[in-house]
């Protein structure tokens, strides 16, 4: 009996543990140990107005625009899509979640750990957007911007937070609103059952008074397939005419369609249609009866993160250092205290486009030397054994020392090309050229020591003329700094391949000055643009030295004629600006488009009989000033506008 009782008690407790425990766990689900799976095929399923149709022209409702943002939107023309450089561009990253065609999210796994190393986002009209999950840093500010930007992600609980930088400028929404190229986008993606909620934060202080927050939803769709929208763009302009460099835009005040939609949506206040931070808070409703003006509203406005001016300047850091960025083929970009120097490094030696400022010469040359050694003469592990190893006579010990510890030094600097006489381009000429070597004069030159003993310096002859003549604030350059080979017509080709490719120096007549050039490395597919192109300021146009806005635009058009994008308007021929980040055709096109718009605006004001002071007061550059302008320093917005005015008045 006692035994039966004990056995019964044991069975009772055993049963209790099996039955009661799950019920005793209560209604709280267990905490998962891994984030939810967001991969799969998703279709846009959100019933808010923006996701079903393109907003009409002039509809800026809910966008916290500042005046620059409004002006930029008002003057943007939809047919910009028809220009050769933009025909194939994908949807902008902010717009992507609202475009047609669904989304595909793929997981790329680390093969050793099976953790997700990278998510890939794909849309119909897009490039693959990888989101790196490995805590890698974002690239430096002088690295290229792309359509999809550079994204890193982290899981915060069950929400994937994605931070994207290095985005090109483009449209915030179809129909006008634009972004600059200095915005940062943050996304928060959370899966709820079969719904994916995506919150996007676009922080663009150039055009917005506060970060712009939107949200949308997708639903899992097992039958969905994200199609590929092919792009068949040729260089034929969809916009007609015979000017392949035509830039569609509206002069300020000339976009007459901005209010057409209000005839249908006649309950929308006209003022609110212009957007603005004060219209997005409930306080705005107090203005509807007219008792309170929008200007007097106090709202809980949000702040942007960081300083956009610092982000712009970081593309061309005046930090006394040299930063290296490999570009393509033989070509490297060196950022020397904010000035870009291009270096071709190869078996025949080194070619530099420009030599930076004088104070940076030692550091620059040290960097170039180190680069050449690492590219051409780096010690390596031995991969060969025996008497037949390359470079060996007999058995391998000289070969081993050559490979492992003492490779042959690289060939020296052979050529310098100066794209202008700007002190920031020629400051290192003397030292750099002297450190180099160019064989000239053959054996007959031995009687004259200096001939054939230094690098050749190539430039347009106007550069030589300016450098060899003292001017008001600039003494004549020393003889050793002067160009040794000049040209005077449309272009100068190096007479032979250098480092395996053609190098062609094109004249940019009457651009920043009368002596500007840009350099095309034809196999590496790199153009060193010199001062004609900058990503940190308006072009510095020296009227006294023959510069003009027309010349700058013509030079940019010439670059665009030569350059070819790799895919969907991105990459391909790389363009190294005089100052700023490494760029491509779309970036050059954006800069060219801006300058064309400004030129047209100033031209229109001149046609109206405005004086230069009146033109400045009209602020024809207002929508670009936050990005490229300056109120202090050696090149201000006012100086730029004045230069544009003068060059148009002189009708060059």
């Amino acid at each position, binding site marked *: 009996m006692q035994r039966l009782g004990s*056995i019964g008690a*044991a069975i*009772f*407790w055993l049963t209790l*543990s099996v039955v*009661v*425990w799950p019920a*005793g*766990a*209560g*209604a709280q689900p*267990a*905490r*998962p*140990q891994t984030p*939810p799976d967001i991969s799969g095929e998703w279709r846009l*399923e*959100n*019933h*808010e*107005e*923006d996701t*079903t149709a393109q907003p009409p022209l002039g509809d800026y*409702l*809910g*966008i916290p625009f500042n005046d620059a943002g409004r002006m930029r939107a008002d003057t943007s023309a939809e047919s910009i899509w028809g220009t050769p450089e933009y025909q194939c561009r994908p949807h902008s990253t902010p717009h992507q979640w609202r475009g047609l065609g669904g989304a595909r999210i793929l997981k790329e796994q680390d093969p050793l750990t099976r953790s997700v190393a990278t998510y890939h986002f794909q849309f119909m009209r897009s490039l693959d957007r990888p989101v790196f999950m490995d805590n890698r840093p974002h690239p430096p500010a002088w690295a290229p911007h792309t359509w999809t930007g550079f994204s890193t992600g982290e*899981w*915060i*609980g*069950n*929400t994937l937070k994605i931070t994207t930088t290095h985005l090109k400028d483009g449209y915030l929404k179809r129909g006008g609103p634009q972004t600059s190229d200095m915005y*940062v986008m*943050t996304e*928060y993606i*959370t899966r*709820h059952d079969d*719904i994916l*909620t995506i*919150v996007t*934060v676009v*922080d663009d202080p150039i055009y917005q008074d506060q*970060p*712009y927050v939107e*949200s949308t*939803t997708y639903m899992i769709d097992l039958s969905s397939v994200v199609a590929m929208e092919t792009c068949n763009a040729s260089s034929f302009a969809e916009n007609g005419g015979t000017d392949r460099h035509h830039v569609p835009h509206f002069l300020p005040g000339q976009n007459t369609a901005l209010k057409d939609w209000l005839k249908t*949506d*006649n*309950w*929308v*206040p006209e003022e*609110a249609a212009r957007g603005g931070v004060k*219209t*997005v*808070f*409930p306080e705005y*409703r107090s203005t509807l009866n007219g008792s309170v003006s929008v200007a007097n509203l106090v709202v*809980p406005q*949000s702040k*942007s*993160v960081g300083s956009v001016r610092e982000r712009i300047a970081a593309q061309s850091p005046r930090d006394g250092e040299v930063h290296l960025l490999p570009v393509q083929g033989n070509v490297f970009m060196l950022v020397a205290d904010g000035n870009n120097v291009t270096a071709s490094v190869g078996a025949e030696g080194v070619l530099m486009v420009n030599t930076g400022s004088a104070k940076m010469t030692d550091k620059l040359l040290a960097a170039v030397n180190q680069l050449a050694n690492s590219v051409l003469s780096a010690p390596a592990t031995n991969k060969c054994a025996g008497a037949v190893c390359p470079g060996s006579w007999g058995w391998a010990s000289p070969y081993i020392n050559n490979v492992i510890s003492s490779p042959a030094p690289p060939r020296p600097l052979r050529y310098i090309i100066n794209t202008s006489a700007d002190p920031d381009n020629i400051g290192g000429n003397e030292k750099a050229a002297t450190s180099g070597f160019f064989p000239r004069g053959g054996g007959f030159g031995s009687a004259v020591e200096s001939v054939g003993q230094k690098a050749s310096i190539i430039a347009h002859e106007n550069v030589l003329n300016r450098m060899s003549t003292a001017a008001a604030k600039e003494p004549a350059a020393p003889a050793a700094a002067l160009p040794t080979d000049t040209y005077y017509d449309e272009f100068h080709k190096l007479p032979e391949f250098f480092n395996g490719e053609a190098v062609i120096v094109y004249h940019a007549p009457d651009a920043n000055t009368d002596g500007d050039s840009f350099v095309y490395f034809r196999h590496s597919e790199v153009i060193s643009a010199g001062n004609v192109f900058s990503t940190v300021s308006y072009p510095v146009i020296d009227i006294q030295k023959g510069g003009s806005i027309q010349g700058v635009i013509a030079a940019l058009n010439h670059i665009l004629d030569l350059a070819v994008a790799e895919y969907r308007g991105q990459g391909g021929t790389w363009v190294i600006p005089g100052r700023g980040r490494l760029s491509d055709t779309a970036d050059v096109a954006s800069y060219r488009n801006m300058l064309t718009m400004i030129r047209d605006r100033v031209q229109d004001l001149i046609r109206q009989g405005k004086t230069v002071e009146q033109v400045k007061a009209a602020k024809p550059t207002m929508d670009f000033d936050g990005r490229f302008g300056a109120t202090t320093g050696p090149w201000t917005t006012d100086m730029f506008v004045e230069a544009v005015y003068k060059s148009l008045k002189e009708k060059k």
Partner: protein
Amino acid sequence: MTGSRGAGELARLWTKTDVTQRILSSLAALAIAWLIAGPADLQAQRGGRGGPPPAPREAAAIDLTGYWVSVITEDWKLRMVTPKKGAFDALPLNAEGRRVGGLWDPAKDTAAGEQCKAYGAGGLMRLPGRLHITWQDASTLKIEADAGTQTRVIRFGAAPAPSGEPSWQGQSMAEWTYGPPARRGGGGGESRSGSLKVVTNNLRPGYVRKNGVPYSKDAVVTEYYDVNVLPNGETWFTVTTRLDDPTYFARPYITTTDFKKLPDATGWNPTQCSAT
């Protein structure tokens, strides 16, 4: 051992009460210990060994308490102002929904005392305004809206059958959805993770928009609340709302609505319901 002798030995072993008893007692002791200890997750949720599960307030996956302001960046013309009758932009209405929506008569609604139709749970969160979210008690979250001076009471626990008279705010039941714990070194300092899911029914017929776009008494509103900290340090929440109402909608009506956290009640502006 030979066969018969082995069987005999086994029989003797089985019948030895002390061995059997010992085995069963050991198993019982283990079972008792298991009941007391429980799995690790359950421990965490209980807040300690052997205690009852924590109340929803203590077990909150995210913190929704405080003052919040709606930031109207999307559907502005349909939310900040009252759109004209028949503006059904983007709505997956069926024919009946369009027909009824086309009959909207705000004067009639006011006369009938139904000026709060657009302030029900099916549309309240889309209206511009401020929210004040607090814990009414350990298992009940309260959402007060200054728009229409409405109050939503969100209870935790398994959803019971609808009871009581239908109301503008209906009957809401909630549950936490937990995310994984923050990884070492990551997460931007976030220690909580998860979402709030709320299902609301037993609603009086109302409007999803102020211009009379209807939802019926059979509508079920499912909401998911997520809290995010933006790069500028601000806390926002986004509520994903799914309204299922086959009476008027051809498929679920889904929206997302964003709110920014405020430090205090500045700007709190209770306003009465208005049919326009």
